């Protein structure tokens, strides 16, 4: 039985596309979606050099953007009557996603092919690690 699908929301427009694919799946399986975003601290560090903004300001922007996409995905799920909860954490995406899968006991992990603004997470590397450490299906959407 598939109870929970962890949908990684990357704070980018691809999140919406990923949600469009995962929401019907969740409905068909009668699963709950855990929409999950990681505010990537490494992005904030890198962007401060390029943007001239300080790290705190960039983190605040990333937090707000992350929540905006989470709530957008929630609206989409709600319109389809799919159960959903939201969670945002700060850290390094790969580690936090692995942590969240275990913490929330997700049965399936869905991850958009593109990642957080400015510093694409190496999805291939993540999938390799996920296959080694998680005994769950991984959807790359």
């Amino acid at each position, binding site marked *: 039985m598939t109870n929970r699908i962890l949908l990684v929301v990357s704070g980018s427009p691809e999140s919406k596309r990923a949600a469009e694919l995962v929401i019907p799946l969740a409905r068909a399986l009668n699963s709950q979606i855990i929409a999950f975003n990681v505010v990537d601290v490494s992005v904030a560090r890198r962007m401060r050099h390029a943007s001239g903004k300080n790290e705190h300001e960039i983190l605040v922007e990333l937090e707000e953007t992350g929540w905006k996409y*989470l709530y957008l995905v929630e609206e989409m799920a709600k319109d389809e009557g799919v159960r959903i909860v*939201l969670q945002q954490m700060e850290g390094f995406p790969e580690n936090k996603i692995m942590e969240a899968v275990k913490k929330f006991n997700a049965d399936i992990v869905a991850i958009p092919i593109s990642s957080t603004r400015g510093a694409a997470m190496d999805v291939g590397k993540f999938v390799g690690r996920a296959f080694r450490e998680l005994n769950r299906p991984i959807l790359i959407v």
Partner: protein
Amino acid sequence: MKLSDYISEDRVILDADVESAEDVLKQMCSAMECCGTVCAADDLYRKVREREELGSTGIGEGVAVPHIHTEANAMSVAVLVTRNPIDFDAIDGKPCRLFFLVVSPDERRAEYLQLMATVSALIHHSELRNRLMEARDPGEVIQAIREAEEKAACSAR
């Protein structure tokens, strides 16, 4: 977008002596009716409850942000601080004391998403959460939010 622009003192409830999530939502919906954001608190409560049934809006760290777009007269936020922690089925399993009810007219969805993002990001900071939970009157709540917004704006300059 500033959260403080959507809160007024008549929508701030402190030291609420409530025992359940239902009580929390009922009190906040009543505050929304009293200030004219919606015409019927009962109808608003039913819709907010329906949303909660899809998954708790408890976002962790003792905070919940119930929200709904509906036939509202204005975009508004109500704040409620409970006397005791309440089980709200939050994602981190912790009980909640701090609640923000966001209500928006149906036609203002983009602003609605932005306002919830603003609330959720702002309240992530423990200093503000603590100030709100210790506030003695509604004016103090609004002042604490304004100061947090000002601080965020200053760091952006």
